[in-house]
């Protein structure tokens, strides 16, 4: 029963990750990111409930607080302030990206197999999905042309890592969890400041303006 639930959550994570990869509009990206956070939180609740690791509740609580409420709000605010809610053109066209993503998933599952055999958690099957989510987020960062989607990709990667942590080891020790969360918060704050700096320097968040520093001619 629990296993099915967890696997459901895992597949939801993967689905959302693909959706993000495919998504063109920034705002919907933000919503997807929020959903991902929610799924993550639910997942840790379930795991915590079934395995009796009650510190997972706390981490679930923080996840909701941060990744379902705070970050999306901040991003939403930024996007409206900077007036960039419109669609994001990607470097490679979407279908190609999807194909690459699928290849990555296969690779991730293969990679996860030996590990998940070692792990004796009930959630071990989902480790492959966790790696897949991380790699997909990575891919998304590579393919996106604007600054904000890149950041969202980065946060998605963070989610993937959390998911991996919960699924592989029922979460990291509390200190570390808190530290990571702290880093994420600070990072996002800095990013907030940063967007404005970028904006005032290039009056756009398009990364193609940020290709001055290089070694190759022309």
């Amino acid at each position, binding site marked *: 029963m629990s296993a099915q639930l967890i696997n459901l959550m895992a597949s939801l994570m993967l689905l959302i990750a693909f959706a993000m990869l495919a998504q063109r509009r920034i705002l919907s990206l933000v919503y997807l990111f929020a959903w991902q956070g929610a799924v993550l939180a639910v997942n840790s609740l379930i795991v915590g409930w079934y395995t009796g690791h009650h510190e997972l509740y706390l981490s679930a609580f923080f996840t909701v607080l941060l990744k379902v409420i705070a970050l999306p709000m901040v991003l939403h605010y930024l996007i409206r302030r900077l007036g960039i809610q419109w669609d994001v053109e990607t*470097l490679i066209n979407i279908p190609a990206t999807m194909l690459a993503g699928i290849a990555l998933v296969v690779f991730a599952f293969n*990679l996860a197999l030996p590990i998940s055999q070692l792990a004796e958690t009930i959630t071990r099957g989902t480790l492959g999905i966790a790696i897949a989510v991380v790699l997909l987020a990575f891919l998304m*960062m590579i393919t996106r042309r604007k600054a904000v989607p890149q950041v969202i990709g980065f946060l998605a990667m963070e989610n993937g890592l959390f998911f991996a942590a919960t699924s592989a080891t029922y979460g990291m020790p509390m200190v570390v969890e808190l530290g990571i969360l702290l880093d994420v918060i600070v990072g996002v704050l800095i990013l907030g400041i940063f967007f404005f700096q970028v904006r005032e320097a290039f009056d756009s968040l398009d990364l193609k303006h940020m290709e001055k520093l290089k070694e190759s001619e022309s």
Partner: protein
Amino acid sequence: MYPFDTAPLDLILGVVLLWLLIGLAGLARPTSLRFVSRVLFPMGTVGGAMLLLVAVFAIRVEPVSLVLPLGLPDLPFHLRLDALSAFFIALVGAVALGVSLFSAGYFRQGEGTVPGLLCLQYHVFLSSMVLVIVADDAYLFMVAWETMALSSYFMVTTSHKIAEIRRAGFLYLLMAHIGAIALLLCFGVMHGEAGQYTFDALRSSALSPFWASAAFLLALFGFGAKAGLLPLHVWLPEAHPAAPSPASALMSAVMLKTAIYGFLRVTFDLLPTQIWWWGVVTLVLGLLTALFGVMFAAVQSDMKRLLAYSSIENIGIIFAGAGLAIIFHAYSNPHMAALALVATLYHCVNHAFFKSLLFLGTGSVLHATHERSLGKLGGLIRNMPWVAGLSLVGALAIAGLPPLNGFVSEWLLLQAFLFSPGLPNPYLNMLVPLGSAALVLAAALSGYVMVKFYGVIFLGQQREEKLREARDAGLWERAGLAWFAMGCVALGLFPMAVILLLDHVTLPLVNFTLSAAISGSGWLLFTPVAAERASYSPIFFLLGIAGTLLVTFLAVRGFYHGRVRRSAAWDCGFPEQTSRMQDSAEGFGQPITQIFEPFFRVRRQMPDPFSRRPVYFKTNEDRLWYWLYLPIARANERIASWIGVLQHGRIHLYLLYSFITLLALLLFVR
């Protein structure tokens, strides 16, 4: 035997310390010329004399070694003084003595680096050379070696505001560093057990012939780069002229010899075996270098460049001798190996003496006339009799004329060459005598070069007005020059004394001494092999010439008269004689350019026949520069630009790099 009660190595270290202190003292009052030149340099002279004295006695004593509490924790500085190093130390001391004397009167205010700093560089240079020679482990050797390069680099770039000098300095340090890298590889190849890098460990390391040859070739490359062996010579004619004359003298006279020392040390001492083709390679390279150097010297029009190229020639001769020694040693013919080795070492000393003499002479000329180009000098024998007279000795000696020292070493080397038909290898029997012909050609051409050098600078009419104000060198400078001139004469007249010292050097290296053959036939006659085999007696020689000269003079005066009338030069009755009618430096070199045209990269600019003020210039460049060095530089740039494409400025690509790296590694792990 050994007169001092302190161990020789300690005394030598004391001198090194003294020199370093003198150098630092220079920083105390960096701008005061009087302090530096009247106090510090004379003290340096004392150090040089001390060094010479100690080393000459130390050649005879047993090797002594010492470990300093410095260096790497597992590899402290090891020092060792055996006959070979003592011999080269003596060389350093002798030259340092003379050059310091000269420098005491040489430096002027407001020429490039401040005197104090120059003094520091100068003395650090000296001490580093001594340390190179007494070093007994790879680390200390490398440290001293590079310190030597560094300190001399700073002296080369003294007047760094001139672009050519900056370029010369850069080229010099680059080549020195590349050579040092090769040496590092060489020591690495020879590594002893458990990564010990003391020379003892290197000696005891068992090397397969392949690795031994690798080590040898690396050593040849590294030391050749420092000595200016073809094709690694390009820096030398740039760097040596750029430095102030005392520095040039030290670099040519001693620094190149440290390379010879290292080469002999590695080849004969550290490497377990010698293979005959090593000798052939060295011999051929040496002869090529000698011919190349002398040819280019013949066409130079800058007096210091000319001397630099002549240094290349002499280095070639020295390497040829070393190669011969290797061949004989490899074929276990100790007597001839000893002969060749003695010739090599003897030529090292000789070159040190006459090259310092000539470089210092050019220094005096430079200060008297502010002119380096031969085309603007001439007739200085009238204004500067001292410098001219002493330089004449040097010029004759470097031209290899009896009874001066240059001839002795070349004579010995030829003797060694003439024995090669005794070798078991038929090809060598045929080829080595031809090599001797190349050697003789080089020697003869060096005579040509020296006539050009001396005749154009000191003889003839003065080519410029300002030369009339030229003043002769001061006392200090004369003293320095005189020291070297005396050395040239003494080394020429009393070779036996030196040979007897050199026996202590050859004995450990090729385990043979010439003393038996020499002492066989008195001290008057110099017979390195056997009296009936070959003999040469400089004393008789001098007596013969001088005696006849005296007799003739008296006879002519007695039977006839000594009347002399002065008048204008006849010159086949040409009405007017201007100084521009004499051969310019280019003119004098022209036949050489014409005969050996293919060796040069000649660029001429002929004047237009109708031009009011005709301009003519001609440059002879080094083909190797265009064949070897520029291609390498271009290749480097091309690779760099290829790699440069990687850094494209797009963050996506950078992320992609990390991504691919990650995936690749993961695949690699699975």
